[in-house]
């Protein structure tokens, strides 16, 4: 799906949300959730070739497991920004903040092995 259809889709979703805002606010939120899901799905589907290329490059460069950690953290960030922005858009700023906190905790948990290998490297150099 090229960028033109995605932009047209977004503008149309904004128009539908604006119309629905006065008639029924709940379904305006539903429309914005659905539009956010589709646009992010299209964007991430378009990301696939570049992710494959970066994976093959990083496997060649010998930092294999770090690239998988990198992509896992990226996926977590995408999902948490989607949900946090939707929550903030619907008026729940506190909920959005909690979702972002959970996202940071998840990324920290995922990237733990990187810190341990760094610590081993440093102690190896010093010791």
């Amino acid at each position, binding site marked *: 799906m090229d960028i033109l*259809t995605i932009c047209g*889709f977004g503008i*149309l*979703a904004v128009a*539908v949300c604006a*119309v*629905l805002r006065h*008639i*029924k606010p*709940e*379904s*305006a939120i*539903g*429309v914005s*959730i*659905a*539009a956010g*899901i*589709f646009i*992010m*799905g299209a964007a*991430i*589907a378009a*990301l*696939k070739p570049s*992710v494959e290329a970066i*994976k093959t490059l990083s496997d060649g460069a010998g930092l294999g497991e770090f690239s*998988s950690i990198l*992509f*896992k953290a*990226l*996926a977590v960030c*995408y*999902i948490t920004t989607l949900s946090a922005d939707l929550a903030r858009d619907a008026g729940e700023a506190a909920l959005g903040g909690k979702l972002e906190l959970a996202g940071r905790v998840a990324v920290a948990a995922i990237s733990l092995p990187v810190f341990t290998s760094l610590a081993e490297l440093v102690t190896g150099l010093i010791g």
Partner: protein
Amino acid sequence: MELDLLFKIAAVGIIVAILNLILKKTDHDEQAVMLNVAGLIIVLMMIIPALSELFDTIKNVFGLW
């Protein structure tokens, strides 16, 4: 494409709003509340498959789990 889902959700919202007014005018207010809940559930039932489709695309793009 997914455009029709967007318009389906908008249509459900508008229909529920109109029926709500009708029920309020004929003073069946409790049914209006139930109608609101039913409309919300219908919208959620439409959104959840799209959400699972998004999570599947994220999974196989980033090769996770």
